[in-house]
């Protein structure tokens, strides 16, 4: 079953004080996210990622279109009990402590009283927040708030988690922890839909991604497919400072960096280059198939749209 089916949701805002002019924030969007996958929603700032998430959360009403979440109409309050949401740069009632806030959210999500206390402790340790008893949220750093935000999103053990820029405001160590956490969510059988403009996060985590730009969907696909679309080459690295003539003869592009030599060569030459290196008696370090990075794909999609837009203009 699809976890999320977005069926031509679109949003047009009216901007201006007196003379309202329509401004399209989201072109009709059609997207399906399968249950159990980690789905990355990619795009530069202001692309329409947050608008899409807000529509799905029922915070903003779409101009047209509909969506289904976990097989139900997306506005159905029953759905809300099974989803978790982390807004972008989350902010919470700053007069509460973390325990009070999570207890309150637990109440609202219908977590039974006897489970609530245990669950709160569980998610707090899961996001790495300890020793914060009695501390009001107004004293929390940005990173700590982000962790509380993740904690409240998974507090009620939802089947589907929406995360809007979950890594923002975190230090490198924190990002690493959140990555692990998201991976863990997938292991627990949950579906994760997260938006980000940081491609390395998406590449490391996602099963599939969608790229959105200026409110328009530019591409969807499995990360493996997207990044293996331009294959046919391998990267070979060995120890040495010299580039043997036999390898040059194979047509490899070679660079010397420090004690290592890096060569890129067509994958049908793989056996030939290994034989050549064996003959040269150098120490082989690695042979990896070369993949296009997600970044390359992303930039390509964005540039494509700009050139088509340019042509249209």
């Amino acid at each position, binding site marked *: 079953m699809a976890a999320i089916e977005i069926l031509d949701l679109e949003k047009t805002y009216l901007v201006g004080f007196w003379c309202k002019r329509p401004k399209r924030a989201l072109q009709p969007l059609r997207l399906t996210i399968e249950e159990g996958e980690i789905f990355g929603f990619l795009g530069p700032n202001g692309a329409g990622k947050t608008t899409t998430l807000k529509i799905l959360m029922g915070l903003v*009403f779409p101009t047209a279109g509909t969506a289904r979440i976990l097989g139900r109409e997306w506005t159905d309050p029953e759905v809300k*009990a099974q989803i978790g*949401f982390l*807004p972008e*740069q989350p*902010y919470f*009632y700053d*007069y509460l402590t973390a325990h009070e806030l999570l207890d309150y*959210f637990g109440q*609202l999500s219908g977590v039974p009283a006897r489970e609530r206390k245990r669950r709160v402790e569980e998610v707090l340790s899961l996001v790495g927040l300890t020793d914060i008893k009695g501390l009001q949220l107004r004293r929390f750093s940005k990173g700590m708030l982000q962790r509380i935000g993740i904690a409240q999103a998974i507090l009620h053990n939802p089947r589907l988690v929406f995360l809007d820029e979950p890594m923002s405001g975190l230090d490198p160590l924190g990002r690493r922890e959140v990555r692990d956490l998201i991976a863990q969510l997938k292991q627990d059988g949950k579906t994760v839909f997260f938006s980000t403009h940081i491609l390395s996060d998406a590449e490391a985590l996602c099963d599939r991604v969608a790229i959105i730009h200026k409110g328009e969907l530019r591409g969807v696909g499995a990360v493996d497919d997207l990044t293996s679309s331009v294959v046919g080459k391998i990267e070979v690295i060995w120890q040495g400072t010299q580039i043997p003539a036999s390898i040059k003869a194979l047509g490899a592009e070679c660079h010397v960096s420090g004690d290592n030599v890096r060569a890129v060569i067509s994958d049908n030459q793989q056996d030939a280059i290994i034989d050549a290196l064996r003959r040269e008696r150098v120490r082989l370090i690695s042979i990896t198939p070369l993949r296009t990075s997600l970044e390359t794909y992303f930039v390509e999609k964005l540039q494509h749209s700009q050139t088509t837009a340019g042509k249209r203009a």
Partner: protein
Amino acid sequence: MTSRIAYIASNTFREAVRDRVLYNLIAFALLLSGAAIFVGQISIDIERLVVVNLGLAAVSLFGTVIAIFIGIGLVSKEIEKRTLYTVLSRPVRRWEFIIGKFFGLAGTLVVNTFFMAIGVFAALLYVAHKFSRPDALILIALYFIILEFLMICALALLFSSFSTPLLSAVFAFSLFVIGSFADDLRAFAELSHGFTHWVAAAAAYLVPNFSALNVISAVAHQQPVGAQLVLSNTLYALLYTTVALSGAVLIFERRNLK
């Protein structure tokens, strides 16, 4: 459903308490004890009148200010600070949020009024040295003041559901003032004709009518308040509150949260 309203209400109450709203009680206590001591000196037959009038007027004024200043921020502040996102993404209906907020604020005011009432009776005991049976009428006046608070809370919440806090404050205060003039507005509507009559009559019935709820001076004179007035005022206040809250729900139900 009901439990979620109660959770939201108790969190609203907790917010008010932690924002030190109840500190107003200190100012109230100072004002009242000062007045009680002062009128004890200038004996002109009306110490009791002054204490009851001033005490009840202060209860009403302090409560109105609190109701408006908290009420106008109840929804708009949550939208502005985006604290609402993580609430409405839970199984909370928007109308439950509005109703919960209302009860939270109303509860805050009832607690606040309770402490103020103790102050009024203490001051009365200080100047009159004993309670008399008609002093129980003060309880009716306090009850009417609470009814007035309910209406003001609901109105502040209504404005808060579509407007900025500053504008909401202006709206709510204007309605509070006009509501005190509502009698005249209705009298004016009776006298006018044609289009003016309809506009004035509509306005007169649309604004909250506080004049019937103000029995402070009658109570200060130990005049009985009719049971029928108590009943009618109760019904009126509850119905008017329902009108304002329904309006708030209708607006908030459609609101896009930026």
